[in-house]
């Protein structure tokens, strides 16, 4: 029996919603399921904001969360009530059976449960108080309840819980009691829903499965690629990249510096790249804006360096804890002058790992800054990733030239536009790395001829990156040949697009999805070819302008339907599906139960 179950836990800040989701996904991953999970939380640590932990467990790695959850848990009814409809027919709704104070009609979640859903009212608070003396372990009680109700083994939960409270024996003990209390209560229930966890899939050989977040995968990629130095300044949602590197890099004898601001961070990064180190920084939109000028230096001086950018809602401070794909224009075009650079956007956590390492290869191979564009959704989302037993990244693509002899030309014009490179201190490899336009030796030169040649060199050298070994700059999924509707998507939204495409095909619509990983340089030919196969083209993305569609149309002038939305959350699969149906001329059908 195959497993495909989505669980959503909804609570208020302070309820431990996100922590519960984390323990749950770790336990389920340990049991052997594939997990994809993404949490929604407010910017405040305490207070009244809504928190949602959602996770989907499957046998095969899923691409996105589902439009409907199989199990919905309420830790706070006022926040959970608007989400009750999210639980599917015959799905389970788990909620607190009691109340601390009097409630007006409709304030309790039981007033909103659909006749098709199965209510599980549990004395969550009482169980927490009974087992720990306090109501603070309600979230852990709920975890135990889920484990008990769905007859899952308790040990992985105990281990995940133990890991969470490592070093706090007293807290761990109390929470273990809460977990067991919840488990016993859940196991006591006679199940009426049809949510069934099948046996976990057999472990794949040759790779170790690990549940990991997008940011953690980036870090793992960077470490596996042998990152030497990192300079950064914290900003949500990129901070955890630096935090993780700070604990990982010293183990490998590498160094990380938290600089005073983003300008210093990018300056040091470009400097380290100039010095021959594998180097990176990480930031979000506001930080990238500050880095734009220095990025230009990296471009003109042809310095390999990597910038991880995790986007959030903007402009300005915007919405630090909401996901958005609205920094694409800045990543591709930001800064002054004709500053071509490589921009790649992973579409899942596995991609975060591969591009997190491969970015260093590309930076060195094409001697340029590489922007790896994530967003909050991808950074914070967890998936189970099969890690190869040996890192797949090439250790050295420095292409350090033999500089013995006279006349080393650092910026030599070559057929493939890649010039020989030296590192400081290399005998005969001396040159001037400057922000001024320069000649082949690096000396200032502002003639029209040289500026034209150098501009062409800096742009055309990147084209080879589209075929960079191991990188799939784009990939087509779904039906081959002519299709009614083609979807072109990038970044984190691709998962939802793919899920929608699968559902559309189940509905009998011929449909394909093109994943575009490399956005600069743009895979013009491949996109044009794809569009040629499509009756209608849909471009879903989470920004207001349709930034990717704009870039696409600049390269491939063809009418596309933009589905540009700013829901402060990942795009809904349902919304994409509805648009596919509309484009395919299907009348909107009722969502099948």
């Amino acid at each position, binding site marked *: 029996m195959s497993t495909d179950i989505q669980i959503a836990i909804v609570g208020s800040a302070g309820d431990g919603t996100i922590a519960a989701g984390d323990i749950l996904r770790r336990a389920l991953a340990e049991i052997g399921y594939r997990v994809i999970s993404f949490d929604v939380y407010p910017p405040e640590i305490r207070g009244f904001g809504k928190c949602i932990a959602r996770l989907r467990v499957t046998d095969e790695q899923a691409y996105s969360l589902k439009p409907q959850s199989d199990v919905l848990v309420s830790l706070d009814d006022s926040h959970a009530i608007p989400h009750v409809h999210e639980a599917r027919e015959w799905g389970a709704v788990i909620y607190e*059976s009691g*109340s601390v104070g*009097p*409630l007006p009609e409709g304030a*309790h979640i*039981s007033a909103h449960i659909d*006749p*098709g859903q199965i*209510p599980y009212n549990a004395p969550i608070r009482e169980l927490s108080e009974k087992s720990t003396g306090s109501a603070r372990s309600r979230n852990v009680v709920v975890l135990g309840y889920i484990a008990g109700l769905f007859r899952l083994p308790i040990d992985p939960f105990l281990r995940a819980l133990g890991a969470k409270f490592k070093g706090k024996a007293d807290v761990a003990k109390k929470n273990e009691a809460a977990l067991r209390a919840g488990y016993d209560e859940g196991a006591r229930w*006679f199940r009426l829903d049809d949510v069934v966890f099948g046996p976990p899939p057999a472990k794949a050989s040759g790779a170790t499965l690990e549940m990991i977040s997008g940011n953690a995968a980036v870090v793992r990629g960077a470490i596996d690629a042998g990152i030497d130095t990192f300079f950064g300044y914290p900003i949500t949602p990129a901070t955890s990249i630096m935090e993780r590197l700070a604990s990982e890099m010293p183990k490998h004898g590498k160094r990380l510096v938290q600089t005073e601001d983003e300008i210093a961070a990018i300056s040091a990064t470009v400097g380290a790249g100039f010095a021959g180190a594998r180097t990176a920084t990480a930031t979000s939109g506001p930080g990238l804006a500050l880095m734009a000028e220095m990025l230009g230096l990296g471009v003109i001086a042809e310095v390999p360096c990597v910038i991880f950018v995790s986007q959030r809602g903007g402009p300005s401070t915007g919405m630090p804890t909401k996901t958005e794909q609205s920094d694409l224009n800045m990543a591709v075009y930001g800064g002054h002058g004709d500053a071509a650079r490589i921009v790649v956007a992973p579409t899942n956590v596995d991609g975060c790992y591969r591009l997190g390492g491969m970015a260093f290869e590309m930076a060195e191979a094409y001697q340029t800054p590489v922007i790896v564009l994530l967003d909050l959704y991808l950074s914070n989302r967890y998936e189970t990733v099969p890690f190869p037993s040996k890192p797949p990244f090439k250790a050295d693509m420095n292409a350090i030239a033999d500089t013995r002899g006279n006349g080393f030309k650092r910026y030599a014009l070559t057929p493939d536009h890649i010039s020989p490179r030296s590192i400081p201190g290399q005998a005969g490899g001396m040159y001037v790395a400057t922000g001024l336009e320069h000649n082949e030796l690096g000396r200032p030169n502002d003639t029209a001829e040289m500026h034209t040649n150098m501009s062409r060199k800096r742009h055309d050298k990147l084209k080879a990156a589209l075929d960079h070994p191991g990188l799939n700059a784009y990939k087509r999924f779904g039906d081959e040949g002519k299709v009614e509707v083609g979807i072109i998507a990038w970044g984190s939204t691709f998962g939802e697009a793919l899920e929608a495409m699968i559902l559309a095909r189940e509905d009998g619509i011929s449909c394909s999805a093109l994943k575009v990983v490399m956005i600069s340089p743009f895979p013009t030919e491949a996109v044009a070819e794809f569009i040629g196969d499509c009756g209608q083209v849909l471009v879903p993305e989470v920004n207001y302008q349709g930034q990717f569609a704009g870039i696409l149309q600049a390269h491939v002038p063809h009418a596309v339907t933009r589905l540009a939305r700013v829901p402060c959350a990942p795009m809904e699969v349902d919304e994409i599906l509805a648009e596919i149906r509309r484009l395919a001329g299907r009348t909107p059908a009722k969502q099948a139960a």
Partner: protein
Amino acid sequence: MSTRHHVVIGSGVAGNQAAETLRQRDPDSRITMITISRLPFFNRYDLPRVFYGARDWRRFIIYPAEYYRENRINLRRATRVVSVDSASQIIKLEHKESIRFDSLLVASGAGAYLPEDLSEFRPLMHGFGAYREAVTVAEALPKAGHAIMLGGDTIGLDLARTLLDTGHRVTLVAGPYTFWPHEVAEKDRPKFIEALTKMGIVVVEQQERGGIASIETGAKGLAARKLTFHDGSELAGDVVMPFYGVMPSLDFMLGSGVDIERGLLVSPNLRTTNENIYAAGDVCQIWTDKEHKYCFYHGWKNVRAMGELAAKNITGADEPWVPTQDETLRLTKEGKIESPFWEYQ
């Protein structure tokens, strides 16, 4: 007619029939149905089917979720009413939520009655009122297992037929509750008991053994339960199931200001002593002018008619209750027992 709020407590035969009638007669009203059950209304008469292997509870459901959506009935399951304030027309739920009603129909039905002298043995007995209980019994009863049935009301005797049919053994500890709610005359009793024996039920008269002294867990290697009578004789079986008729479920109505004896006391139009509160089904005792007393009526036909009548009277009618179901226990020509309470459509 209005946007009155009709609240129905209970989602059994009476409650559902009432809600449907209320919706027809008062299309704009708001209807809330409250039930302690987590399942929508299911067919209790079908429960013995679990012994034939029917384990998908969804097949027991009488109305699909769509029915409640279409009739705009807010079905509140897993919800316990703890009190009703008839003066201020407010219902309090266990989770401290208050619901105001314009009309209230109490159709909370009845639960299995267990004589007080047996109450200490409750944990060792198996009930048979809910789907969950039915499955539990089916799991506790091994192949060709032995069920000891106490009391032997019609619900129990119906189950006994199925148990015999599926290759189990049944011993009935007969007493005053045997055949409940049928009232069997003293002189007719022996022939009905004989009919049970013919069916294959072993009948033990409780009174001859001085009553039940204890129920215990059977010793290792023996049947799961041991029943001892006051005269020292014993019975061993896999399950002990009490079938002593039912008792109205109306704890939440105590202190409501509505008159109660054993059930809610209602006038022939099914109205309680509060003008906004009606009752229907096993929970109510209806005044009969003819007999000058309050009577219970059982059987799904009666109960359904009560639900419909209560809904009519809530929405403006004023009609008296007339029992619709023949309640006599019959013996067929072949000497088989037939109860009108055994069939459900």
